[in-house]
């Protein structure tokens, strides 16, 4: 990384992120019917967003492992790291979401479509890791777990069609809804989007760090193998 890139990163993380938090906690008005608890929005939505992003990243690298011969070793740990960070953010989403559900809907868990879909995402991650650890001895470990992740990925659109028919939703509309509009006040919208942006950059930083650690581990291993 170039030095000024690093400077921008640190600026975004250490200066903009606290600013966004202050905005979210103090400056932004609350939603009229949710009260103070509407401030959870600015922390819950970015975390959920990151868990989906890392699922997509893991899926992208899994597809590329199978498609192209190039940089396969690199993609191996990239897919794994994305899934690894994804399961942590999914867990955080589930916990914070259930706190919010207790406030606004009255119970910690009621199988709302959003809750169901995040739990399915978590189940997919969990089974991916069980498979990954079971394949420890296999030479073809990454190919097999990539195939599993791809099959899990193609079931996700079917869930989007099937879940709303089975469970009625209480969840407020997601950002991308049928009207293609965002039903939020301007100030809330601004705070939400800066929060998502800052969280995404923060996540990108952590993900990059994980990848660098894995690449170092790989080169160390190769060195010891050579000796």
């Amino acid at each position, binding site marked *: 990384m170039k030095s000024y890139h690093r400077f921008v990163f640190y600026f975004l993380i250490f200066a903009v992120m606290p600013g966004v*938090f202050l905005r979210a*906690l103090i400056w932004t008005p609350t939603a009229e019917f949710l*009260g*103070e*608890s509407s*401030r*959870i929005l600015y*922390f*819950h939505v970015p*975390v959920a967003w990151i868990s989906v992003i890392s699922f997509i990243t893991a899926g992208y690298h899994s597809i590329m492992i199978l498609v192209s011969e190039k940089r396969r070793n690199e993609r191996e740990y990239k897919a794994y790291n994305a899934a690894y*960070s994804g399961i*942590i*953010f999914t*867990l*955080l989403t589930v*916990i*914070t979401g259930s*706190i*919010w559900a*207790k*406030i606004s809907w009255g119970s910690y868990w009621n199988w709302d479509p959003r809750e169901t879909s995040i739990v399915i995402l978590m189940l997919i991650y969990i089974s991916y890791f069980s498979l990954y650890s079971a394949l420890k001895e296999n030479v073809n470990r990454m190919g097999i777990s990539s195939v599993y992740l791809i099959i899990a990925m193609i079931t996700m659109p079917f869930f989007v069609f099937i879940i709303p028919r089975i469970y009625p939703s209480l969840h407020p509309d997601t950002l991308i809804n049928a009207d293609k509009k965002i039903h939020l006040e301007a100030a809330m919208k601004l705070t939400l989007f800066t929060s998502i942006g800052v969280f995404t950059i923060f996540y990108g930083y*952590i993900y990059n*760090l*994980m990848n660098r*650690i894995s690449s*170092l*581990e790989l080169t*160390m291993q190769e*060195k010891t193998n050579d000796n």
Partner: protein
Amino acid sequence: MTIEVTATILIIWFGIALFIYRLDRKVKKLEEESGEE
């Protein structure tokens, strides 16, 4: 109401902190391994 907001932020904060702590331990292990050689 505010207690729940605080709880949410603390949970996310602890989760990410734990995550970074694990990364830090990995780096430490790498440093020790490279120091031995």
